């Protein structure tokens, strides 16, 4: 009863807080808000990504070259000629082969090393978090800088790598950056140095997400180490590993900065991978039409690749859900 009275004595205060209290921003409805929030992002993406892509598609059907045409609108329409020429060109196929020769070993190497190290670090030990953080640093670094200091280390005469190989262990010195095959190997090595940490990070997350009780259950069932790995660890983390592989495949396929710095854009044409070759057509020979067409071929390949991998990923996910 006392409380009731207290409430009544509070009439003035109640008046103060009776809604409708505020009418501020009532005009700002949710619908309007959605538009205000979304449009800047979409306009920028349309302006800086979609529009250039469409333009580039148009250009790929012309023979536009700034050397000859004063403005791009003056470029003659050539239909599928650029594509036909490119697909008939043995050189292009060789460039894609070289690309594959870099991408496949790189991703394989990064995967094996990254997963291996993650497996090694999947148990607790002193200094684990410090060492883990240290190992992760390379993937955040500027690729150009990474290329530069590896170029320094891989110099045939004064490089520290050859010093160890030749002077300490007595193997013949390797001409890392100038020999055709060695140059590709250098790319693999340096890209792996920078991006193995990425695979390591994802693998480590996957490994530590496997519930401990599963291993304990297997232990009770007297499963061997290999059996546990094969039948518990691997199925559970394979979707995650595939995500890592997808990321790495796409990125290595686009690799440009590193090649530019490490081997001067891939040296002579016959050691170039696709992006560097594309750059040369565009900014070397200024053959914009053809470069645009090659760009689209690159896109088609990457989209097809991504599609296949995502399909495999979904397959894996539904399997692990069963």
């Amino acid at each position: 009863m006392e409380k009731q009275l207290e409430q009544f004595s509070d009439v003035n205060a109640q008046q103060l807080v009776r809604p409708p209290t505020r009418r501020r921003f009532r005009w700002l409805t949710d619908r309007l808000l959605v538009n205000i929030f979304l449009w800047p992002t979409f306009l920028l993406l349309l302006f800086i990504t979609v529009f250039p892509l469409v333009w580039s598609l148009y250009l790929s059907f012309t023979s536009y070259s700034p050397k000859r045409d004063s403005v791009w609108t003056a470029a003659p329409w050539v239909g599928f000629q650029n594509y036909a020429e490119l697909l008939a060109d043995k050189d292009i196929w060789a460039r894609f082969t070289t690309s594959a020769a870099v991408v496949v070993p790189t991703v394989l190497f990064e995967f094996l090393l990254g997963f291996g190290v993650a497996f090694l670090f999947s148990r607790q030990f002193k200094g684990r978090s410090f060492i883990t953080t240290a190992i992760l640093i390379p993937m955040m670094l500027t690729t150009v800088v990474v290329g530069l200091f590896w170029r320094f280390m891989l110099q045939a005469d004064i490089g520290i790598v050859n010093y160890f190989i030749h002077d300490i262990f007595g193997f013949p010195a390797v001409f890392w950056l100038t020999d055709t095959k060695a140059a590709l190997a250098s790319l693999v090595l340096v890209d792996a140095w920078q991006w193995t940490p990425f695979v390591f990070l994802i693998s480590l997350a996957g490994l530590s997400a496997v519930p401990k009780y599963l291993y304990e259950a297997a232990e009770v069932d007297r499963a061997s180490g290999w059996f546990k790995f094969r039948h518990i660890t691997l199925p559970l983390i394979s979707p995650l590993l595939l995500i890592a592989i997808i990321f790495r495949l796409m990125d290595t396929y686009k690799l440009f900065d590193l090649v530019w710095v490490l081997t001067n854009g891939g040296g002579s044409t016959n050691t170039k991978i696709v992006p560097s070759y594309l750059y040369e057509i565009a900014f070397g020979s200024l053959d914009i039409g053809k470069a645009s067409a090659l760009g689209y071929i690159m896109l088609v390949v990457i989209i097809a690749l991504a599609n296949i991998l995502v399909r495999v990923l979904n397959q894996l996910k539904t399997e692990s859900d069963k």
Partner: protein
Amino acid sequence: MNSILKNPLVQRTMFWLATTLVLVFFMFPLYWLVISSFKVRGDVTLTPPTLFPFVQFQPTLDNYIDILTTTRGGTTVASPFIGALVNSILISGTATLVAVLLGTLAAYAFSRFRIPSEGNLMFFILSTRMLPPIVVIIPIFLMFSNLGLRNSFVGLTLLYVTAGLPFVVWMMKGFFDEIPREYEDAAMMDGYSRIEAVWKIVIPEAIPAMLSTAVFVLITAWNEFIFALRLNPDKFSTVPPYLVTVIGYGRPEWARMAATSVIFLLPIVIFTVLVRNHLLRGVTFGAVRR
């Protein structure tokens, strides 16, 4: 053989041996870079190389002084590197600010409202990030030439904003999805309008997430090379293209390269350590969380 492998002491030794090898592989290049930056020019290319400062060689700051200053007409002035560094800071800083701001708003909309074909739109945003830069650089180069955006502060900044946006939208949507809607519901129940609820409740909650997202956008913009190289070769050049020229074309200037690199990489290392717990989310677009 088997029994030897099962000996705990042997196991431990093997474990630490492997760990040391891993550490050497990933850390030695950085160590080598750092000590090289403190060597006098001639010492950098010595064979056999000197590995231990103070023991084998006397560290010097010459390279750093050298790259930060130039003597022009007898007086010491800031070097071109300083100019490039300022550009890098301004351009990536501005781009990060704008991208985080716009991307956060879009992410909020995606997280809280029913948006028609939301899944497709989110995928579209993601897919723009998957494009190889080499493919889009040609039309962007032409477009920016036509619009007078080449060799400008705005042009490159705009590019980095656009490059960062998909990342911000995906990351922040993930974070917003984790912030209970009830916070805003409660605030709106108390008489606030939605925009006030966002400002007073959601944004303060999201600030840590926004900061770690910003770090990733910043580092990406900081590291970007090909667009900077083609679009801003002159006045507004950032550090990465500048770095390629610093080693020179005749006799490579390794010591100066090392010093420049150390200065440029130092902020990245610091930021990486700061966001170390968010790295997984950061490098996978928020697709993988712990």
